């Protein structure tokens, strides 16, 4: 069996499963957020009754992160709906925007977009917060009401996005009927060269198979090349399995996975026991691709879909209005460090926005020092508009007052994960997806630029 089949078999209480088979699996974690949480709670109450209790309070994780730093009253209300539900159900894992359990969330736009407006429990973007807060464990099943839930596949677990109705069902029963996906095999070899990042790996893979090439399928990443990829890198890659239509992305378990997960579970006092899945000698794949990391070059997905692959060096003629770094896939500490390396001592020539995924990443950047300056100061000095208000922000457009949102038909290069028409705001705007290094290089020149031109 493949890694995905092994996890699904275990969660279904079976000795084996085959691709195409429908199985009921037990969930280990159900995650929801402010955009889909209120609707999920609505389904749960409508279907199981006003007095119903969630199937297991320790397994429901609620992370407001999407539309937080906006004056939109419904968005603020939606965070309050989550808080009321958490109190009613006594859920231990709720990463609220404010500290007061009986409070109401109101964003104060008069304080501006850059200074932090959240309390001590806030965790930021759900997919990045889940591992940081000790909720991702090898061998487990994670359901989330968000398509990028697949990011947790980096930790050798089965993680996939579901809708509100399915999530309401899981909330009440702890189970879900799944079709076992066929597995596509991506065997990684070699080592990334200077200026080439994990984002280039996944944009390359999506370009190879087409952006619906993994529909109804699992994408398994393994091979000797994985050892050279950090957990941040693996998250970037697994995150974008959905951009090829994939049901999930998954990595093998290794010492790096173990060190990360053990540390995070201990730090947060979350469940520390887990059972990874190891690859079987015989695995049945629907297709096999070998990816030589050594040969990859900085890659871009052009407007209007993540499969429009081109090399950055061939796109120098495309002039840009804006650059953006942030989101679950591109707003991690490692992403910002690579971004800052390109910008160090230079100045951007187009509007450039930086949104760290989580408060912990804000802290990392404000405390890491290169010489006499913090990385945060280096970025601000380079002209990047850095906000402390970690959230999904303009990655998915959001309410019109969202930080970095494109409210006019601009061209933007972005370290995020999706570039369909209107994704970052205005429906006639254009988004080009690239690595943090390529976004940084392009911000310095105002056109799409291969970062290797600037890294000596």
């Amino acid at each position: 069996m493949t890694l995905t089949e092994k996890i699904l078999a275990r969660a279904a209480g079976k000795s084996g499963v085959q691709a195409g088979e429908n199985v009921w699996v037990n969930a280990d974690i159900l995650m929801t957020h402010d955009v889909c949480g209120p609707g999920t709670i609505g389904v749960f109450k409508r279907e199981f009754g006003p007095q119903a209790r969630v199937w297991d309070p320790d397994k429901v994780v609620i992370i407001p992160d999407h539309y937080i730093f906006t004056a939109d009253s419904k968005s603020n209300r939606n965070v309050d709906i989550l808080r009321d539900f958490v109190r009613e159900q006594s859920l231990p894992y709720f990463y609220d925007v404010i500290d007061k359990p009986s409070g109401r969330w109101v964003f104060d736009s008069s304080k501006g977009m850059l200074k932090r407006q959240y309390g001590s429990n806030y965790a930021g973007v759900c997919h990045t917060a889940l591992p940081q807060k000790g909720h991702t464990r090898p061998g487990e099943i994670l359901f989330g009401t968000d398509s990028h839930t697949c990011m947790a596949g980096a930790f050798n677990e089965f993680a996939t996005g579901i809708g509100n109705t399915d999530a309401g069902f899981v909330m009440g029963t702890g189970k879900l009927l799944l079709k076992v996906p066929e597995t596509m095999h991506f065997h990684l070899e070699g080592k990334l060269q200077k200026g080439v990042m994990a984002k280039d790996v996944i944009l390359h893979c999506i370009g190879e198979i087409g952006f619906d090439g993994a529909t109804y399928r699992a994408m398994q990443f393994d091979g000797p090349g994985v050892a050279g990829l950090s957990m941040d890198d693996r998250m970037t890659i697994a995150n974008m399995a959905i951009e090829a239509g994939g049901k999930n992305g998954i990595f093998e378990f290794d010492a790096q996975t173990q060190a990360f997960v053990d540390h995070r579970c201990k730090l947060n006092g979350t469940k520390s026991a887990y059972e990874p899945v190891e690859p079987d000698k015989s695995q049945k794949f629907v297709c096999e691709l070998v990816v030589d990391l050594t040969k990859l070059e900085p890659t871009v997905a052009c407007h209007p879909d993540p499969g429009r692959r081109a090399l950055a060096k061939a796109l120098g003629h495309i002039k840009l209005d804006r650059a953006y770094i942030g989101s679950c896939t591109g707003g991690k500490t490692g992403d910002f460090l690579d971004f800052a390396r390109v910008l160090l001592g230079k100045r951007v020539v187009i509007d450039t926005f930086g949104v760290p995924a989580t408060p912990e990443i804000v802290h990392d950047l404000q405390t890491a020092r290169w010489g006499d300056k913090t990385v945060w100061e280096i970025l601000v000095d380079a002209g990047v508009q850095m906000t402390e208000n970690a959230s999904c922000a303009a990655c998915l457009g959001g309410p019109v007052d969202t930080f970095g949102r494109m409210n006019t038909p601009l061209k933007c290069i972005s370290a995020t994960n999706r570039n369909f028409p209107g994704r970052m705001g205005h429906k006639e705007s254009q988004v080009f997806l690239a690595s943090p290094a390529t976004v940084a290089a392009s911000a310095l020149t105002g056109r799409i630029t291969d970062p290797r031109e600037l890294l000596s």
Partner: protein
Amino acid sequence: MQSVFTGPVFVVGDNIDTDQIIPAQYLTLVPTIPDEYEKLGGYAMAGLPDSLYPIRFVAEGKLDSEYPIVVGGRNFGCGSSREHAPIALGSANARIVVAESFARIFFRNSVATGELYPCECLDRLCEILKTGEVVTVDLDACNVSVRATGKVYRFKSLGEVRPVVDAGGLFNYARKNKMIAAQA
């Protein structure tokens, strides 16, 4: 249970993602709150670029569409897991999407909510039909017939998905079949 649907089609191309079906700025609306469910219908397909789609799916200021049947190309409903997407179409009174292929989560959400019948047709109807043409979709016969030309196009049987949508979604279906307890 209604199995034959006749009406004008709204035609879109390949890769219509959930941001085009319901733009992210409207996800502040909660589908289980009745008046917000209605409002979602008014924004269905509001993310389609005007330059490519001069005819709107829902007329300005209206909550319902004149098009009960949507015709798409490949990979319809790709992108996010937002259930608001099939709900917005259903709230706008669409009942059927006929597309060459569907993205996985959209297909599943259409069935789980019972909002839409997602029919997969091997012919590229999005290149054959124009918005406003009247067709009849017969779910039992698994075909689409075009009133003007009389031509008939087959789609794949909905199989075990059909009774779930017929029942009005996952919960109703599960209760009807005693898979979960009767409503609390």
